[in-house]
Structure formats: C-alpha cells, structure tokens
C-alpha cells in the first residue's frame, strides 16, 4: 500500500544530471517516491522560493527518485540552479495513474512531459510493443533517448526523436509524425504528456481513429490534494481527479486545449 505524505520531508540532492543546456535532473533517495505509479506527482519544495508539482523521474537504482526541470520562470530556474548537497522538500505522491492497455502503445511527449511517460514505459507489460515519440525544437534539446532505450530494453520498442528544425531524427512536430505513423500502424492505446496544445492534437487524432487515449495534464497547483481548487478544470480537480484523463472526458471538456486558470483563478487562453 502506497503511503501518502501531506507534509514536506527534506531530501538531499545526491546527483545533478545535465540533460540539455536548459534541462537538469536532480536525484534523491526516497523509497516512497521511487515506486510511484506513472502519472502521479509530488509537490517539490524549493525552500524560500516555491513549491511545484512535478512528475517523478525513473532512476534505475533502487530507492532513488528524481525530478527533471527545464529552467523557465523564477521557480524552475531556482530549482535548476541547485547543486548536489542542497536540500529540497517533497510530499506526495498524489493523483491517479495511466491505465496501461495490452498490445501496441504509443507514448507521445514533449520536453519534461516525457517524465511520466518514461515511468509508464517502466510499468509496461512485457507483451507491450512500445513506440516513444519525443518532440523538441532542435537537436540540442533532445534528451532521455538513452534512458528510454534502457527502460524498454526487454520490450519490443522504438524511440523516435522528432525535431521541429529537422536537425535530428524525424523532422516536424511530434503530432505530425504521430499522424503519419498512425496511418500505417494500428495502435491499441496512445498516452501523452507535454505542452497542452500538443496533447490536444494527440487526443483529437486518437479520438478520430477510435484509439484509447490518455493525457497527463498540468494546471496551477497549490495544495496538490484537492482542497484549494486552484487546478480545477471543468468540474474536476486536476490534482485529485487526475492528472490523467481519458480521451472521452477530454473530448467533452470546455477547457482542455483552450484555457487554464491564473493564480487568482481567472481563466486565461492558451
């Protein structure tokens, strides 16, 4: 039985991995977070700065967990700038998990959205034939290719990097590459995480072909446990009812792919 913590526990950053010039992975020891289900997240406290919802990255060593961050705003940059030996707080895990179907599955991710998808890959059934599509702008932003191949070494699989400028792998948006692939390959399920516009396209494509699809969503989160309401989308709380939602629900959502809430709760367009 998974134990869920609502109070931050301090962990020491044991290792920092440079993934790209703007993305780093921070490794900690946390037996509870090491085994979270794909789609679940933790609230990560950067003392004195902020607390952010983050998916837990797969680390091969037992009892280890990690967070992968791209430096962007004040808080993500503060996390990115931490060093080995620095302290962060963690609480969780929270949220639901992907429902892994049998057969041929596609994982479609962009940027740090790959984190929950690699955990899904780790939980894949031995019989799953897994295709991972990783989207990025250019070659120097491609990461997790080796990690994906390693996690899936015992599965039939392929890892396809897609770059918008064509400097590496397939040229184009990950959604276009998926659309092309789906013309010849019959997928039993598609899972996606990344920028919401990308996920929206993936869900639309899967729904139009009648393929089971799930997306792991991100919203402004404060409590992470279904109290504050900051992350509400339509009638659901993304932290508590999600973060994983299926294509049928998302197809009927007024907000998915269109709007998200600001810190005040006002709806803003994507």
């Amino acid at each position, binding site marked *: 039985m998974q134990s869920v913590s609502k109070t*931050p526990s301090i962990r020491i950053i044991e290792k920092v991995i440079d993934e790209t010039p703007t993305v780093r992975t921070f490794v900690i020891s946390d037996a509870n977070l090491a085994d979270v289900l794909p789609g679940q997240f933790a609230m990560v*406290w950067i003392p004195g700065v902020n607390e952010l919802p983050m998916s837990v990255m797969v680390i091969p060593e037992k009892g280890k967990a990690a967070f992968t961050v791209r430096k962007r705003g004040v808080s993500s940059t503060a996390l990115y700038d931490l060093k080995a030996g620095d302290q962060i707080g963690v609480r969780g895990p929270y949220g639901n998990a992907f429902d892994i179907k049998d057969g041929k599955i596609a994982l479609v991710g962009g940027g740090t959205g790959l984190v929950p998808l690699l955990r899904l890959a780790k939980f894949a059934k031995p019989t799953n034939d897994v295709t991972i599509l990783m989207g990025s702008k250019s070659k120097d932003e491609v990461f997790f290719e080796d990690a994906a191949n390693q996690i899936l070494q015992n599965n039939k699989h392929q890892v396809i990097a897609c770059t918008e400028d064509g400097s590496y792998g397939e040229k184009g948006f990950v959604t276009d590459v998926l659309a092309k692939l789906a013309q010849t390959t019959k997928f039993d399920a598609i899972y996606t995480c990344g920028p919401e516009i990308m996920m929206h396209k993936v869900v639309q494509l899967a729904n139009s072909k009648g393929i089971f699809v799930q997306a792991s969503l991100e919203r402004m989160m*404060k*409590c992470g446990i279904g*109290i504050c309401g900051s992350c*509400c989308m339509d009638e659901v709380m993304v932290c508590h009812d999600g973060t994983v939602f299926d294509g049928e629900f998302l197809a009927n959502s007024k907000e998915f792919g269109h709007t998200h809430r600001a*810190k*005040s*709760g*006002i709806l803003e367009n994507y």
Partner: protein
Amino acid sequence: MTPDLSVSIGPISLGRPAMLASGILGISMEVFNRIYRNGAGAVVSKSLSKEPWEGYANPTIVGIKGGYLNAVGLSNPGAPYFAEMIKPNKDVPIIVSLVGSIEDEFEFMVKQFENCNVTAYELNLSCPHVEKVGLEVGDDPKLVTKIVSRVKSVAKAPVIGKVGLGTTNYLDTVKAAIDGGADAITAINTIRAMGIDVETQRPILSHKIGGLSGPAIKPVAVRCVYEIASKYDIPVIGCGGISSWEDALEFIFAGASAVQVGSAVGDRWIDVFSEINDGIANYMKKKGYSKMSEMVGLAKRF
C-alpha cells in the same frame, strides 16, 4: 419515515445541513454543481475581494498532525469576475463570501451580484493571514458593525458574519455583527498558527504564519458555537474540523443550525457530504427525530 434533513438558519433555508466551507474548491460553477450534486446543502465561495488577488507563493497548504496549515493569501478572481461566472446559476445554493477593509468595498462587491441567484453573503471577518482584512477587521467591532449594516442596506440576500479567534474577544465581534443587523454567524475560521521544518529550520508556509484547520481545532470551534448560541439569540453555522456525521452533530447539539465542512475534503474527498447526510439521517431514525431543528442546542439543557 425518512428524517427531514433540511435546515433553517434564520431566513436561509437549505435542503441539507452540511455546506462547503469558504476557501475550499470554490472558484468554478462546474465544481459548485458537482459538490451540490454530491450532497452539500450549499457551497460557500472563496472569499472575493474587489480586485483579483494572486495570493501567496507556495507552500500555501500543507498537512500536519491533526489537520492542515494554510496561508493561501485569499487568492480569488475578484467579485466582478465571479459574479459574471455565476450568472447562469439557477438551482445551486451559493453563499458568496466577501472580504475587504472598509464598507465601501463591500457595497461595491454586493452590487456586482444584483442579477445573480445568491442564497446569502458571508462576510469574512476572520481570515488570520492577510493584512488589513479578515481578522484585523473582526478585531475592530465598530468597523464590523459599519460593514455589516452597510451590506444589509444594499443586499437582497441574508447576511452572515464569519468570526474567528483574534485579539478581540470574538463574542464582542459577534455582538458587533448582530448590532449591524447580521442574520447569522459562522464560527469559526482557521486559528492563527505556524509550522517549522526541523531539518531546514524554516517556517514551512511561504507566508510563515497561516491558519490551522482540521480535527485539531474542532473542540475549540464546538466551544465557540456553544458560547455564541448560549449568549445571543442568533442562528449559528458551525465550522471547524468537521469530518464525520458525529462531528456535525456535536456542533448541532452545541447550538449550530447547520455546519460547514472544509479540510475534511482533503481527507474524505467530496464524498464527505453524503457521508454526513446519511449518518445524521440514521441517527435521527434511531433516536426518533423527524426534523433537524429538534436537535439544535440539545447540549445546552445540561
């Protein structure tokens, strides 16, 4: 015979006794609908201010032994935005919580809701972690009377004052609200509190001091409801650490006409409302009560 779970709180009538407390989940109409369908008697909005507020940086809410600490900072989309959002509302009993520093702000906010279906206004006189509003207003009885009477003069719906434990005797705040014409009192808000992380030696909340909610404050809240109901002739809504039907009944016996549930949503999720309804209904059957009002204040006879 099925017991009647409807309640009257002065002029306010609700079909069921437990409402969603202010500050919890309350920013979208779709969520209000869902909570009402799941058994809440009414939903109280997050406290709305004249302008939108972003609130404080995280951590804003953390669990601790016995409950939760929070200093969200009253983040809210502002009364005008919220009023526009609830305009389509037909059947969900929405109690609009308002927060401000002076009576003019409250008047401005109430006027935003002229074309909305509002069950009541609840004036936040007790948030313990934002300056110049909430508890700082509640600690000034003269200001409380001015604000309540101004709101009463412009509001078409009943007016509730929500009190908490500040530096002024909260019973004086209750009296001030009654003098201003309040129709009911909600007691209590979270209690000013803090938590420190031992490893980093830092306050956990970004705002350092926040409010304590959950089971830890329930006995304090029961005592306050009992004191208010014993001293004044005004309907009381009990709030503070309620997470089961037994907790809800404790407040009813202390003198509350209805209750509000907040933090328990973090432990029991929104099923907590139907659990409370079912538990109270079973208790009433077992004990032979047919109406909620028969049970209000029963502990006062001892």
